[in-house]
């Protein structure tokens, strides 16, 4: 009874997240939800595919782009400013925006993706690396963090079918 709400409990709620995007901004929702769900005793599985797969690399250098993203307005000089696409297309602008975003993240006490990923592993979030994407984009297992297992669509589906909640991000 004392251990009734542990995530290993067979009555625990389960969630899966398909992680398909690997930019700095898009990396947040899956890791925030996975870690928070795990903290709330949900058994979580993350499936990393396509551009989401590099989020499992040991060394992350995530970038954000204002290109084609009119919703991206950064707080600046007391207002919110976006960048026209033609400015965003200039080499170096993505890098500058990424640095600005990371500074903002730090200043506001928001966790880094590395921290959230570490927290996910610590709280037993299961991670599946898409084998097809590994082959397609020529990623090597030795460049990835320890922990994720390799699998494909069927491996994911087996989890998803039995899961209470399935998200595609």
């Amino acid at each position: 009874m004392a251990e009734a709400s542990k995530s290993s409990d067979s009555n625990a709620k389960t969630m899966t997240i398909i992680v398909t995007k690997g930019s700095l901004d898009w990396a947040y929702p899956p890791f925030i939800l996975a870690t928070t769900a795990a903290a709330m005793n949900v058994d979580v599985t993350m499936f990393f595919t396509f551009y989401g797969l590099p989020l499992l690399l040991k060394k992350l250098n995530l970038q954000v782009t204002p290109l084609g993203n009119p919703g991206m307005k950064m707080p600046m000089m007391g207002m919110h400013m976006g960048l026209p696409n033609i400015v965003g297309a200039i080499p170096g602008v993505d890098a500058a925006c990424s640095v600005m975003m990371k500074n903002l993240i730090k200043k506001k006490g928001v966790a880094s993706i590395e921290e959230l990923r570490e927290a996910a592993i610590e709280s037993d979030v299961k991670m599946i690396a898409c084998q097809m994407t590994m082959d397609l984009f020529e990623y090597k297992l030795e460049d990835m963090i320890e922990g994720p297992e390799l699998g494909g669509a069927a491996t994911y589906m087996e989890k998803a079918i039995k899961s209470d909640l399935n998200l595609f991000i």
Partner: protein
Amino acid sequence: MANQLLDAKGLNCPLPILKAKKALKDVPPGGTLEVLATDPGSVADFQAFCRTTGNELIESTQAGDTYRFLIKRVN
């Protein structure tokens, strides 16, 4: 007097919850954890966290910019 104190001031979502979950592991069943936070979203989040995990939110107060939560570990 709470069994454990967690200072989550300056941290943003979801860090106060993640750290509270971790800290609760060191609290004996029936014991309490006191959390200090500055994230205004933590007020709703600690209520939801406690309702979902079955722990008891005994107190939720605010003093200036700081929110204080007292959580009783139920299981």
